[in-house]
Structures are given as C-alpha cells and as structure tokens.
C-alpha cells in the first residue's frame, strides 16, 4: 500500500474538480433529502452512477486494479466526498475494506483476492467499522456497533487498534436497521458474532497502522470538505441576502463570523496538509493524526453551526440541506471517538510522553 506519489498536483486538481462536478450532478441535495424523507437508501440508478466513479479503488495499488493515488490526492478526494455527501459506506469500502482485502490478497489469500476484484467492479458491497480508535468508538456495548453499510453489503471490515478482520456478514453478524434521520448514509446496527477472529481473514501489525492512518486522512478530508461547502454556501448567501437595505455581509457581525469560519478551515487545511505530506514521506504521523482527529471534526462542527446561523431562519429549514453537512460532520466526530474523548486522548498522550521524557 505505497502508491507512487502523483507526479503533478495539477492532475489531482483536475480529478478533484471533475469528481466534484460529477458528484454534484449524481447526488444533488434534493436527491439526498428525498431519500431521507422517504426513509430509504439512495435509488439504484444513483447507486450505480456512484459505483461508476471507481471510489472503492482509491487506496488500492494500480497493479491490484486500484487508482494508485498518493495520500495528498486521496485526501483531496475525501474532501470532495464531504462536500457532496458521498454515502459514508463508500468511504468505509475504499479506505478500510478494500485496502484490507488488498493486503490479504497480497499474502496469497485467493478468497480475499476474489472479494477485492468484485468490490472494485462494484458487484460486491460492504462496509467497515472502527471499534477501537485511539479514543474509543461508536459502540453501545462490546460487540454491537453502528457502521455505515452499503445496500446489499456482504462484507464488513472490523477495525481494532491492532488488527483488521474481514467478516462475511451472513456468517458472523446480525444486521439491523438503524433509525437514523439521515438514511442516505446507510448506517446499520451490527451485532458481531463469535467467529470474527479467523486468522486467514485478519490483517495485523504495521499494515493495520498504515490503513488506519489512511482512514484518519479520509475522515479528516471528508470533515474538511463538509465544512468547506458549508462556508461556501453561507458566504454566497450573505453576499446576496439583504436586510436593513444592504447585504448582510456588510455587517461586521456577519463578516467576522464568516472570517472565523475561514480561519478554522485554513487551520485545518494546514494541519491535514502536514499530515498528508508526512504520510507520503513515511514519517511518523501518529501524534499529529491524533491531534487532528480531535481538532478537525470539532472545528468543522463549529463551521457548520455558524453556517446555519448565517442563514438565519432559512438555515433551520429542511429544504436547504445544510443540516446534512452538519450531521455528516457530527457522525465523523463520533466515528473519531467523540469530542470530549478525543481531547482527553490528545492531552493524556501528551502528558504521558512528557512524563516519559523525564523518566
């Protein structure tokens, strides 16, 4: 899983723009709102179009049939996913399930190789759940978890701190619908059975750390993208909406709120850029990753809340759809461990390291 760096940044920019445009067309806010309103997943035609984008191969080497993108490019695409609210299950498939299958296939596991081929073709769907990220995870109790699952999912990657187990859902888990307000994301409640520890379906060691680092970048990029889209909309609205005889952006109370949102985005962009660069240079990124897993979702949550505020009463309406970006960020924040837990994890880790310096 060490794709060659993208030679030219302009290639990434072009890819990002093109996918942003495609996704805006395939997945308009109206389609997402409709899915939510009628309490169903996205329709087949939309799912088909999304699969056609080849998202599942984003973090898989070209020789295994993937796109072979470097960390910077994958992070940029994750931001597009956040902007356009790509179903969360597609992130899970691309940055956790597919890379885990690629590792197993590389070790000579024919079953995994077959699954990977089908996943990349779009004829097999799946999902993934991180049950024990550094700061805890989405988990009601030991083996019952909330996970994003694609429609008709067959495989689930269960990610713990030191291992990733690929689980065929029919064999080892009970899947129940989860009554989320936003069904478009495809979250399900999964109760894992006993048989989740098969050695030939388990990835261990440094390769888990590499996949988790990649997952982290995807979560961060996606949160950034959702926040960025929220700011974009709010700034545009504030430049058009008139009150008291002038556009509201001329009021400092509004323009400063927008500027504060921009500062948060710039800061997170810089942090993620440093993390992605470190990842591509094979540097240790664990500490910075932990910090950003706390800061970026928290910052983007504030950005989305501010965007709703800038829109005023319109921001509180269902039809505007800003709540979808807000909820996407909230789900990412909890997938990362939850706000309080991530802050504690960062502080505890810092203090422990400091203690070790003096030991």
């Amino acid at each position, binding site marked *: 899983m060490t794709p060659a760096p993208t030679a030219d940044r302009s290639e990434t920019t072009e890819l*990002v*723009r093109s996918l942003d445009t495609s996704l805006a067309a395939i997945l308009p806010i109206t389609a997402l709102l409709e899915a939510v309103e009628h309490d169903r997943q996205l329709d087949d035609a939309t799912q088909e179009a999304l699969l056609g984008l080849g998202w599942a191969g984003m973090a898989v080497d070209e020789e295994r049939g993937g796109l072979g993108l470097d960390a910077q490019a994958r992070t940029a695409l994750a931001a597009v996913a956040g902007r356009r609210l790509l179903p969360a299950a597609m992130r899970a498939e691309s940055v956790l399930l597919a890379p885990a299958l690629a590792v197993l296939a590389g070790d000579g596991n024919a079953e995994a190789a077959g699954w990977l081929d089908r996943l990349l073709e779009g004829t097999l769907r799946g999902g993934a759940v991180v049950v024990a990220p550094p700061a805890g995870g989405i988990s009601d109790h030991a083996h019952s978890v909330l996970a994003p699952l694609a429609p008709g999912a067959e495989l689930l990657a269960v990610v713990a701190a030191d291992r990733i187990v690929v689980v065929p859902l029919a064999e080892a888990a009970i899947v129940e619908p989860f009554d989320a307000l936003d069904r478009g994301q495809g979250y399900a409640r999964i109760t894992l059975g006993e048989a989740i520890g098969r050695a030939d379906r388990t990835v261990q060691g440094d390769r888990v750390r590499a996949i988790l680092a990649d997952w982290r970048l995807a979560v961060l990029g996606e949160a950034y993208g959702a926040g960025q889209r929220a700011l974009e909309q709010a*700034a545009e609205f504030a430049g058009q909406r008139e009150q008291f005889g002038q556009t509201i952006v001329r009021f400092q109370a509004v323009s*400063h709120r927008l*500027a504060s949102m921009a500062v948060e985005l*710039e800061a997170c*962009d810089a942090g993620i850029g440093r993390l992605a660069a470190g990842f591509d240079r094979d540097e240790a990124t664990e500490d910075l990753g932990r910090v950003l897993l706390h800061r970026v979702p928290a910052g983007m949550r504030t950005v989305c809340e501010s965007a709703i505020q800038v829109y005023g009463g319109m921001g509180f309406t269902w039809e505007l759809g800003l709540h979808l970006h807000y909820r996407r960020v909230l789900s990412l924040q909890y997938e990362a461990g939850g706000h309080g837990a991530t802050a504690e994890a960062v502080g505890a880790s810092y203090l422990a390291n400091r203690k070790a310096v003096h030991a």
Partner: protein
Amino acid sequence: MMLDTFPAPTLSFGPADEELRTRIRAWLDDHDPGEPPEAYDARIQAQIAWQAELRAGGFVGLSWPERFGGSGLDPTSEAVLAEELAGSGMPELINRIAVYMIGPTLMDLASEAQQEEFLPGMLDASELWCQGFSEPDAGSDLAAVRTRGRIEGDEVVIDGQKVWTSRAHIARWCACLVRTEPGSVKHRGLSMAIVDMRSPGVTTTPLPQILNEPHFNEVFFDDVRVPLDRLIGGPGAGWKVAMSMLSYERGLFVLERQIRLRRRFEELADLVIARGQDGNPELQARMGDVHAQLEILAAQVYRTLAAKRAGTLRNGATSVDKLLMSHVYQDLFALAVDVLGPEVALGTNGWTHDLLESRSTGIYGGTTEIQLNIVARQLLGLGASS
C-alpha cells in the same frame, strides 16, 4: 477556491537546511549567553550584545543578499535559525523589525544610497530601529495618520505624535509614516520618512505597559527636519512602503513565537505532572485542546513559509497565522492561571508576565478585529464591512 489547493502544501527542509541547523546548534552550544538579566535596561543591553555576537558568528541576515552583507541563502534558512533560537530558549533578535521587515523593504523600494547608509547597522544591532506608524487617532485605522511632513526645499519638516511605538526610547532610526500632501485623505499623500531619533525636536516619553515595563512609547515630533532624500521610495510612496513592511512581518515571527509557546506549554505540563494532576480527565482535555492548537499553529506557519518560498502566498493569508497565534497564546496562559491559581493570578512571576503579555497579542500588528476584516475581504473576497 480552497478545494483546488487542499490539502495545503507544507514546508520541508532540505540537506542544506539541516547542515545549517547542525552548524547553528554547535555554535549555540559554545555561545550560550545564560539567563537574561532581570532589570529591563540590562536585559536590553544583553540582547544588543547577543545580536552582535550572532552576527559575528555569521547567523544574522542569512537570507539577505550578499551585496547587502547577508549570506544569500534560501529564505528557509531564516526559519531554521528562528527554530533553533526559540527551541534552545535563546533570546530573539532585538533588531528583528529592522532585519526582517524594514531591511527587506529597503532592499525592494529604497534608493541605493539609502540601502548603503542604513542596511549595515541593522544586522549587528549597532543601530536599532522602530516603526512610527500608530497615532492617538490612527490605531487600527492606520490610513488616518495625521502627523504632517511639510516639504520645504530639500527637507521634510515633521510635526505630530506617534504612540505605542515599541522601543522608540532606544532606537536610533524610526521608519515614520507622515502625511506629506496637504489635504490628502486615507492612504493617499503619505510618505515614509527615515527619522534620526537624535534629531532636535524628537521627544520620546515611555508609556508603561500593563507589564509595568517601558517597552513602548509616545513620540512627539516638533519641527523635526529630515533630508528629503530620506523618504523611502520618494514622496507619496508611504502607504506602499508601510504595506510592504507589514507583509514581511509574519511567518518567521509566528514560527518563532509558536516554538517559545511550545516550551512554555512543556513547562506547564511538567508542573501538572509534578502536582499529580496528570490523571485528571478534565485537565487532560484542556491540555489536549491547547496542544492541538499549538500543532495547528505550527502546521499553519509551515504552510505560510512554504507559500512564501513558492511565491504563492495569498493576500490576507498571514492574518490567519496572527489570529491562531493570539488565540493559543491567550488560551495557554489562561490555562496556566486555572492550573496554578493564585501564584499566577495574584503574583508577579513569569507566568503572570506571560498571562498579561498574552492580552497584547490580539492588539499589536493589527487587532483581532482588523485581522478578521482582512480575512473577510482578502481571503473570502467579501465586501467591506461597516
């Protein structure tokens, strides 16, 4: 749109930078000036001597062109120096505004004669500089400058008052923004005069800060005569010169500050550990939040330096650095008050000093509100705020 450049490029150091880092570290090991004197005046003299020693060692003006007495190195070399000075707790350059702001502006916009006369004394701190920008009625609204510069023959006669002028009481030269075109308003009709602070008619009055230190001053100009050829860029170029100086201000300054803040945070963490408070989840979360802010600030400043090097720095981008820096500065020492209690709130120790000083970070170099205006206008492209 931000999407095009996401994730932001960051600064990376090459082999030449690392070789320089090794050289600086070795030199610093042999030239540790020790603890700074407590008394303010003695501390200033020690800082002047320190810059002269650094200059003699070949480490001041690393990125200045060789023809101006510099080393002609890549701008990244200055980041290496700033990191090493701050990381080892060594004093900063006392003539920082001359070396990093006024000097580079003179290289860009001044006449050859001005460059020859004024640049050499900046590097070894033999001639200290101050900036005469703010006035009683021109703080955030810098373009409201009212200090007059009356052109009489080959001289400019200056009358007026500057305020909050850092280190004016020890400066030899002042880059002084004056209105030379009678009746002009806002940023038009301004000039940047180089004023000899020993000239007749210059009166400097210390204005003690809340730290009770005479760091900044009121400066009064009463018929002060300055040769006309000491206007940088000529008459009327004042606003352009001022903006050039301010554009050079950030980047290195924030880099250096964030490293010093990081060291203070380490000291605070050590106190938390020594008091057995490191297992407290609430404190862990607050420490985690400040640590995250410091990491983000470091990433932001590396991004700024990378953009400067690549020539892609966007207008208004350095306001983000300033805003993030002042935020974490204030949060860190607010945390220290909560952790250390009365020792900081009521005492007069280093933490008290830094807590009070942190309040200045949202004011100097453009207040938080001005920085937000800049971000709104220049980064977001929004209309002017009322």
